[in-house]
């Protein structure tokens, strides 16, 4: 048994700074071994050069979505970004997610996401559904399971130009929470209707389907095609379908749905 470890060195430019002080990119040279990922390099820097370098991480297996950052400008999980996949002729640039307020170094304040999450009407099954209703075919729940693969890394929120460039005055919930709502709306047992919420509080209309979110999703959820577009269609059916609008005028009924609470 042999443990072959051929070390080379890679240069890193890592953002160091806090909310109070403007930060800068600081250079570090890190010995790298085969198969190393960006998070390994950050841990090496912590243990050997800069013990106070702030980094969030947990599972180091792309399952928890904690270690999100921008690597060479691309929103990435640092635990699954291999050094060997990055250009060798330039320093590897590691910066915090730009959409969220900076706390320190690579750590940002993502608490806004938790507030949006709280505003969504939770899973609401009918309390008197018979036992047989809880039997579902695997084919019928696979789409819902796709939405539920989300690990809340917030990379989709980070890349979304609406959020990144603060393009709206009124709120836009962002791709992550459209995915969550899609998972609730398409759950076979859920009885709430979140259409009005999506249109008003959620600002679903702001999404113009550039699909950047889908491209950065480490779980390969087809966010735009499978979550956002079906929800947009629901909203359009409710609010913009001429037959429904006419019917509402005649009957003086408000659009169906409410906030579903």
């Amino acid at each position, binding site marked *: 048994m042999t443990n072959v470890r051929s070390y080379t060195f890679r240069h890193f430019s890592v953002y160091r700074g806090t909310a109070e002080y403007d930060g800068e990119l600081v250079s570090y040279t890190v010995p790298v071994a085969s198969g190393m*990922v960006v998070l*390994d390099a950050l841990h090496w820097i912590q243990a050997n050069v800069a013990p106070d370098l702030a980094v969030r991480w947990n599972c180091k297996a792309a399952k928890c979505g904690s270690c999100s950052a921008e690597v060479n400008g691309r929103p990435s999980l640092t635990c699954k970004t291999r050094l060997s996949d990055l250009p060798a002729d330039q320093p590897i640039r590691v910066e915090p997610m730009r959409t969220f307020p900076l706390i320190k170094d690579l750590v940002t304040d993502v608490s806004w996401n938790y507030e949006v999450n709280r505003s969504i009407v939770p899973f609401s099954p009918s309390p008197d559904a018979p036992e047989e209703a809880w039997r579902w075919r*695997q084919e019928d729940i696979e789409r819902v399971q796709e939405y*539920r693969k989300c690990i809340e890394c917030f990379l989709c929120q980070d890349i979304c130009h609406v959020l990144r460039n603060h393009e709206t005055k009124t709120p836009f919930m962002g791709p992550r929470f459209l995915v969550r709502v899609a998972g609730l709306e398409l759950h076979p047992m859920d009885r709430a209707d979140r259409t009005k919420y999506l249109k008003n509080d959620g600002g679903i209309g702001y999404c113009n389907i550039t699909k950047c979110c889908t491209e950065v999703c480490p779980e390969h959820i087809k966010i735009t095609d499978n979550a956002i577009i079906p929800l947009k269609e629901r909203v359009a059916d409710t609010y913009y379908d001429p037959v429904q609008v006419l019917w509402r005028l005649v009957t003086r009924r408000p659009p169906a749905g409410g906030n579903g609470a």
Partner: protein
Amino acid sequence: MSDGEAFETYPHDVLVIGAGGAGLRAAIEAASAGVSVGLVCKSLLGKAHTVMAEGGVAAALANVAEADSWQIHFRDTMVGGKMLNNWRMAQLHAQEAPERVRELERWGAVFDRTRDGRILQRPFGGHTNPRLAHVGDRTGLEMIRTLQDRAVAAGISVYMECTMTRLLTDDGRVTGAFGYWRITGKPVVFPAKAVILATGGIGRAYQITSNSWEYSGDGHALAYGAGAELIDMEFVQFHPTGMVWPPGVRGLLVTEAVRGEGGILRNRDGDRFMWSYLPDDRRQEYAATDEEASRWVEAQSAGKTSDARRPPELSTRDNVSRAIYTEVREGRGSEHGGVFLDISYLPPDHVRRKLPSMYEQFKELADVDITTGPMEIGPTTHYMMGGVRVDAETEASTLPGLFAAGEVAGGMHGANRLGGNSLSDLLVFGQRAGAAAVAFAAENAKVREPDAARVKEATDELAAPFEEAAGEDPYRIHADLQATMQSLVGIFRTREDLEEAIDRLAGLRARWQRVRVSGSPAYNPGWNLTFELRSMLICSEAVARSALQRTESRGAHARVDFPEADADWARCNSTVTLDGEVMRVSAEPLPEMPAELRGLVEH
């Protein structure tokens, strides 16, 4: 505070420390009684270790094997734990797990389905029947997200990125907890009528581990420091299948579901070595030939039952880990010091559907396509069977007002935990701890004021590492601790190694007294590590001393110098308590199992 120094205070009826499955389930239960609940976690909500659980949650739903029952689940659990389990916990667990799983479904979890539309269950090591409800190989994510959404909807106050460094006690009772915000480094106090520990395990004390940084044994150390008793600390589970290559991913978990779906273990010579490691008294539960094992896999893949017995790879984790370790030590290992785990003989689509995250993990981190070739794997530190001694019904520790649930609690799993029994454990005992903490709080009308002197002491302790002039970096001490535990308190143990480990741990503790950090307390991982390091040092000493005391081999505890199980030790739990400044280790008789349950395990 008396000297005017500022610290924030958040009083609650029930304080839960840790927001993995056990903590969330406890908080949900407590909140459902209408009391005020605080939930503190070291990371962001939803990132706790439960999220990494892959294979499934064990519950005798009998959806796949109609003959399954709580009695068989109980028997499997006791046999897997080498009869050292607290029998009452194992019984409650087996009886209540099905209801806890069905309840998760009612809360929005979407498990994989059987052909007739019910929750699908897969086989796992040591389980007689297919028993693990699952979602591909990301069951933990499904559970934590379901519980998280439920907790948020219940209006529970969640305090994220907050580390607890002390339990506050008064008059022999827990009155709250003290800690600091990781973002600012500022102290914070949570006065409470009852405190539930749900802090998980201790795996970061080892070099090769599947555990995240959070697993530093904080809850074990907090309980011990406040005077509660720990039990069975020698029983550390080494999961047989962690990644071994490349170096950066060494230790990362490879789910047991790979073997549950038919994965075969081979050494460098291509031998299916598990045939030679089945314990004689259990051999009749396993297939006798390759042919019988293949028939079992075929039936399993097609969702059918057959009369074939399960493959030898589905032996219990302690046994498979020792087998792999032995193969490697005797020169039959792979290039990087592991063995091979092969599922590539099954259709690629089937493998990708059943094991999607393993497929991704190997493809993206190791350039290995598990549908075309074998994985290289080896044992990794995974789970702590030992923990806070609790009452089976209420999860009350020996210290009034303090409860413990999930991995931080001891007793449920005995000498070895079966895969899948951890996710069910945290649901069953999280729920029970939540209810019992509410009852305790109701009998204690008022949240007590924190003792100002103790808070001052705890605050000073936070500042000390910045003031140390000539001390040592915490990362160095941590690396030396991990090396010590890995080499001297690992899968196989001897008296000489354990004594040397205890000596070295004393040296590490002395070095820790002079630990020095730089920078500011705001989001400072080096400073944060110093307090986690203290917890790890306490837990490591408890593991080493308990392992030295137990002069036999049982479950996950294998003594080279005492290779057999011993009839006297079979009747004893190890206990660990703080006596003044000294760690006291002793042995206590197991609770007596009633005759009708004894009948279940002896057949």
